């Protein structure tokens, strides 16, 4: 049974095929009202395809979905009135000024005449574009464009917003400013569904879905994903000449992988305690000074990489058999 009373988005076995290619493979998840839900995955994983199906602009091949209480097959127009959508590519009119773009979407969303001015000012304020209101949109910087696009998508104050990679190609300061806006929306009770391939941004979300090759490989709060989903332990090793030590450490039994991370190494091992001892011995033998060997909470990147590597390993034998 789908719970649509407390959930803004409910998806069951949603699937999209383009000919023989499966872009989204039977994904199921729920997004609670008011939460910031992150959809994390590499380019081409199926993030945009999923978001487009949820916004009612792409027909799914199979599965079920309810957004804002409306069915994605039969009530897509009702959905469109209750969501704000910001597509991946900047999609406002470049030859129109900031104000003209806002006025256009204000008309499209049928904002009542007495509220128009107030909403426009709200968007201009929020995007920091008050002084640039008469500038052609084409002349704005990337960060401003993104904030204006968000503003135009939420003029009608929808309960849910879908943001498809809103910060791609934007400088770090503007990215930070954009996330402040997302928190601000969330604070007003708006459900935010956001896709990204930035790991740091994923940490800002209340809950995450990890999507890889069209499949949902993990789902949960960032903290829980980091704690529970990694079978192996991650050790942080700070020592002299980590770049040469890396190869030697990888040879140790029980060590799965070693990678440079910052000024030290991240070592993935089946048993952290045992591996820590062995690494200590190895480094002592080669005469490298050891600063620290410590079991750490894995980063999202560690989790994601380990999950998709496990999946690739599991899929390989299948592929061989098929051949």
């Amino acid at each position: 049974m789908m719970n649509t009373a407390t959930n803004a988005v409910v998806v069951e076995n949603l699937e999209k095929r383009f000919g023989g290619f499966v872009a989204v493979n039977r994904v199921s998840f729920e997004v609670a009202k008011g939460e910031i839900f992150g959809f994390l995955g590499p380019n081409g994983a199926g993030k945009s395809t999923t978001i487009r199906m949820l916004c009612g602009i792409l027909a799914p091949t199979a599965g079920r979905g309810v957004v804002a209480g409306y069915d994605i097959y039969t009530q897509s127009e009702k959905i469109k009135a209750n969501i704000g959508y910001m597509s991946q590519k900047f999609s406002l009119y470049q030859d129109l000024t900031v104000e003209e773009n806002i006025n256009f979407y204000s008309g499209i969303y049928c904002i009542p005449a007495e509220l128009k001015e107030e909403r426009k000012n709200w968007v201009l304020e929020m995007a920091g574009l008050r002084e640039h209101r008469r500038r052609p949109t084409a002349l704005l910087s990337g960060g401003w464009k993104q904030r204006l696009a968000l503003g135009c998508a939420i003029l009608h104050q929808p309960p849910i917003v879908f943001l498809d990679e809103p910060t791609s190609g934007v400088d770090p300061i503007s990215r930070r400013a954009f996330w402040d806006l997302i928190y601000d929306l969330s604070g007003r009770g708006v459900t935010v569904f956001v896709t990204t391939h930035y790991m740091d941004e994923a940490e800002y979300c209340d809950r995450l879905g990890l999507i890889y090759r069209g499949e949902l490989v993990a789902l949960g709060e960032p903290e829980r994903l980091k704690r529970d989903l990694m079978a192996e332990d991650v050790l942080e090793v700070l020592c002299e000449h980590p770049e040469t030590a890396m190869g030697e450490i990888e040879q140790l039994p029980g060590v799965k992988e070693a990678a440079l991370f910052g000024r030290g190494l991240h070592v993935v091992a089946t048993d952290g305690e045992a591996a820590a001892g062995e690494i200590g011995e190895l480094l002592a033998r080669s005469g490298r000074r050891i600063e620290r060997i410590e079991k750490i909470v894995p980063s999202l990147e560690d989790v994601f990489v380990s999950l998709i590597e496990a999946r690739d390993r599991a899929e390989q034998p299948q592929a061989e058999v098929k051949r």
Partner: protein
Amino acid sequence: MKIVRITAVARKEFLHVFRDYRSLMMAIAIPIMMLVLFGYALTLDVDNVPLAVWDQSGTAQSRDFIARFDGSRFFSVRGTVVNQREMDYTIDSGRALGVLVVPRDFAQKLAAGRAAEAQLIIDGSDSNTATIALNYAEAVVQGYSQNLVFQAIRRNGLPEPRQPLNVKPRVWFNEELESKNFIVPGLIAVLMMVIAALLTSLTIAREWEQGTMEQLIATPVKGPELILGKLIPYFAIGLFDVLLAVLMAEFVFHVPLRGSVLFLFSIAVIFLIGALSMGLVISINLKNQLLAAQFAMVATFLPSFLLSGFMFSIANMPHAIQVITYIVPARYFVTTLKGIYMKGVGPSVLFAEVVFLMIYSAIMFTIANVRFKKKLS
């Protein structure tokens, strides 16, 4: 359907047109240019055919005969030749379209009361002009010999004979038989068909190409609201073009407008809705500006130019082609405009044409609405 949304789309579309000088050029400058070019160049009138003479007789009679040609508005004598080589050269180089050769014994034969001969050599490479020139020449010669006969009779003191048959032809509608009078009204129709379809063929494809459509289809705007909103500005431009064309016909080409101006504009309104919607249908289906513009050009220009009866009479076409002309909307607009301009007729005579144009516009508008989907494919 909400008026607010339609006006929002229409206003935005107006801004696009006025910000982009190329689209303004296309909307205003091209119709004027085409009207001037076609209006002046496309003339079927054969006047002042350039003629050279080889007057071997060199007598008062031969000069009188030549003056008959030069004096008519159909021919103008541009020079003389004195031998075969010069005559060949004059025709080959195109300095004259024909050479009138008056033989040495022209005056003697006339004086002796025998039939004199003269030769007219015409450049037949343009068969249409050559045929008309020959007909003119025949008329001039006939008038000249009739005159001689009457002179002889009078000189002999006999009563002038009564002509047995006297046909008095009267040309209706285009009394001076000037080709601009029927070309310009038809030209307005052809022009409007091409311009209207071209204008709207870009508008939806542009939004798909630039990615703005993806944002738009994720809003509650309805297909018909978008279609109507996009039609309004181009409809205004189209109507302005018609006004421009009518004014040019009046003041530049001096084509008399005999029918009702109100009726003319009413028909233009119906026709524009159809042609603009057709441009939208092309744009919706092709989703690519370059492709859509080229397709719109080919799909409108050739049929309206060749199969509308604008220049080439439909009655003279092979039967199979005649059947095809029934589905060329410009055919009905051409007929209507010619009727209004030259015959001054109204809806009672042009009823069928008006009904067809209405059906055409309704079909095109419906297809545009049905074909436009708020989904990505």
